[in-house]
Structures are given as C-alpha cells and as structure tokens.
C-alpha cells in the first residue's frame, strides 16, 4: 500500500517536469541517467541526427553560485566532469604555452568528419579518377595509336620554345611530379604501402615525402608564375579555337585545323594549370603556415551571400570555423584540386610523349620540324617564317655591299 502511495506521489511530482520539458522543445527524459546523456542520445548521434547538447554544453559548473568552493579546490569550484565538459565544448578558460591559433581548442568535432572523408570518398574517388584517366589514355592509344606527321619531314626546324620557356616548363613539371607523388604517398601510404612494405618503411617514406612536398612547393609556385607571365598572351581564347574544337583538334579524324602558338587543347591545359595550380598553391601555403592564413570561413561567407549553396540544393555553408577546421578544409580542397589537375596533366604528358610524333621535341631541344609545325600550328609557323624573312631582309639591307 505504502509502495503504491509512493509511486503515485512520484508520478505526480515527475509529471510537471515531463510536461515542462515537452513544452520547452520536446527535450527527452533523462531522469534515468540523472540528467546525463542517455543511450538514445548516443544512438541518435551515431545515426547522424542533430542532438541538442545544451544539457551537457551548459553544464560546466557555476562557481558564482557557490563562492566558497573556489577556495576549497584547485579547479575553482567546478567538479572534474564540469571541467571536462567545458574543455569538450571549448568554453573553458584556458592558457597554453603553444602560441598557435588552434592550441586552446583541445577537442574538435570536425576532426572525425574530415578523417572519414579523407580516408573515404576523397581517397576512393581521387584514386579512381587517376586510374580511370590512365585507363582511358591506354584505351585511346590502342584505338587511335600515335598521331603521326602526315607530310614528310623537311629537315628544317623552327624554334618553338626558348631556353627560359622550356626551363620554366620543367621547373613546373618536375616539381608537380614530385609534389604529386609525395602527396599520393601521404594520402595512400597507410592504406597501400604500410600493409605491404611495413610501417617503418612507410613512416620513413612519408617523413621524406613531407619534407620534399613542403619545400619543392616553392619551385612549383615559381614555375607557375613564370609560365603565366610568358604564355598568358598566347593563351587568350580566340576564333581559331572554335574551329579547332569543331574539328576535335585533329585528334579524332584526319583533319588538322589551323592553330596559333597554342591550340585550343593547349589553352585548356594552360588555364587548368593556372586556375587549379593557383588554387593548390594558395591552399598549400595556408597548410604550410598552420593557422596563419585561414581561407574558408570568409570564402564560405561570400558564397552564402551570393546564394551559391542554394544553387545545388545545399544549406548555407558554415561561417564560424575553428582553426583546425580551417586547416581541414584547406587540406581537402588542396587534395581535390590536385587530383583534378593530376588527371589533366596525365593527358598532357600522354599527348606530349607517346601520343604524338614529334611533340616532345618542343620541350626538349626546343626545335620542331616545319612539317610538324605546319600540321599542328600552321598560323604560328606562317608568322615565324614571315618574321624570319623580315629579319633576313633587314640584315641584308644593313650589310654594306662589297
């Protein structure tokens, strides 16, 4: 009887609490755990649902309500769990000896999302993109074969690229290959190198890769700047490109459309290298100097302002990012851009080597046969030959008759 009476009293006492919780936003009943998180909270979080964590976030002690407690404990009147909750949610009053932007944030939620994205979709789709590109190029080679030179070689050559142009190209190309390989080692080493060649080997390889990647990056930036300054004028799109693309650049079929110094395809490569390369360089510098050059909160704010996320049905992007999240977004962007550029550069390497007869001469000796130049860059060849005639004419005039 007494038990029943107690149950009735308890239920009457708890009812207003439950009702109040329902009114204030349907907060779940956590009386069974004394107010701590419940199994349902944990399960909801694991299902990826949004859980209102205010009951933990705000439960970090209030020494003001108990002024004497501060003198009794080194934690300043807060209990251990309250202190850890404050650390967990970034509200603890911290001082650190490290002087970087992220030092005072000890627990960061975005880290797991970044890690799973980096090891999951980024590595998977990035890897398939590169393998798919290599596969497509092999298939293309088998179907189309090497693009030959239709006319017989003349034995006369014209200078296609000067020494400084070729050097800049190889600074950019050499550094990009080193950066690409070391970047792939860093991303895939734990997955594909450590299981087969051992963790020690992988650790040493990645340490060396990191040193190479961080320092060779500057050569890439220099090469990028040099080719931009030297070639931008020749890569401005014009009418000849439309004709070039209409005939698929002579890659498919037998026609060889006229082109200036750079044809439509080369302009695509040039602008891809400049746009993606600059994006990779900027995000890389942000990563190289941790926390000094945050890029994404501001970029996201601009994108939100113009409504860009809504164009593809996304919610507004986060504009308040922890220092670590800035670095994580920079790393993902750096890698995504690098994968795209690597795929484009693979096609460039193919067409400049095994894919086209005579193409590699342009970047090795710098001299190309007139037959090759006539087939692939006829407008440019005419300009060069015209220039040579003018120069020869003016030299003949300047030389006094004997």
């Amino acid at each position, binding site marked *: 009887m007494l038990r029943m009476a107690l149950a009735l009293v308890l239920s009457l006492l708890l009812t207003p609490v439950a009702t109040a919780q329902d009114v204030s936003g349907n907060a779940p009943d956590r009386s069974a755990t004394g107010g701590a998180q419940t199994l349902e909270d944990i399960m909801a979080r694991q299902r990826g649902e949004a859980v209102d964590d205010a009951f933990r976030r705000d439960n970090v002690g209030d020494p003001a309500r108990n002024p004497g407690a501060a003198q009794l404990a080194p934690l300043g009147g807060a209990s251990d769990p309250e202190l850890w909750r404050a650390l967990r949610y970034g509200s603890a009053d911290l001082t650190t*000896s*490290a002087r970087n932007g992220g030092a005072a944030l000890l627990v960061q939620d975005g880290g797991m999302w970044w890690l799973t994205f980096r090891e999951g979709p980024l590595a998977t789709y990035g890897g398939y993109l590169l393998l798919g590109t290599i596969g497509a190029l092999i298939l293309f080679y088998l179907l189309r074969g090497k693009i030959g030179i239709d006319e017989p070689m003349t034995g006369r050559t014209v200078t296609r690229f000067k020494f400084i142009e070729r*050097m800049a190209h190889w600074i950019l190309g050499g550094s990009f290959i080193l950066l690409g390989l070391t970047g792939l080692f860093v991303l895939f080493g734990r997955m594909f190198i450590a299981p087969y060649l051992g963790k020690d080997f992988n650790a040493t390889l990645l340490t060396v890769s990191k040193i190479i990647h961080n*320092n060779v990056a500057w050569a890439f930036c220099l090469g990028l700047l040099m080719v931009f300054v030297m070639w931008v004028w020749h890569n401005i799109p014009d009418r000849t490109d439309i004709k070039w693309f209409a005939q698929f650049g002579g890659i498919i079929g037998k026609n060889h459309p006229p082109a200036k110094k750079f044809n439509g395809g080369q302009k695509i490569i040039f602008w891809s290298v400049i746009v993606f390369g600059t994006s990779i360089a900027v995000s890389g510098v942000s990563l190289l100097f941790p926390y000094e050059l945050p890029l994404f909160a501001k970029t996201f704010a601009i994108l939100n302002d113009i409504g860009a996320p809504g164009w593809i049905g996304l919610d507004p992007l986060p504009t308040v990012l922890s220092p670590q999240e800035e670095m994580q977004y920079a790393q993902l962007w750096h890698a995504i851009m690098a994968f795209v550029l690597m795929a484009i550069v693979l096609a460039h390497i193919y067409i400049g080597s095994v894919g086209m007869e005579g193409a590699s001469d342009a970047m090795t000796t710098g001299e190309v046969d007139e037959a090759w130049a006539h087939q692939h860059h006829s407008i440019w060849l005419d300009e060069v030959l015209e220039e040579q005639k003018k120069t020869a004419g003016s030299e003949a005039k300047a030389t006094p008759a004997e």
Partner: protein
Amino acid sequence: MKAMWAGFAAVILIGIGANFALQEIGFSSEDRYSGDSVRLN
C-alpha cells in the same frame, strides 16, 4: 635537353633553399605546434 636538366636542378636548389629558409624563420610545424616549455631536441 639542357633546359630540362636546368629546370630540375632549379627545383632541387629551390627545395633545399626553402628548407633552410623556413627553418630559419621558425615556421616549421614543429615550432608552431609547440611552446617554450616543450623541448624539441
């Protein structure tokens, strides 16, 4: 081919130079992630 080798040599020289320069200005991750109370060596 000289231009190619010169380009590769420039990559190596810039890389080595950058390594020294970055260490000199104390901007390695090691330095940035630690504080005065952390002994690195």
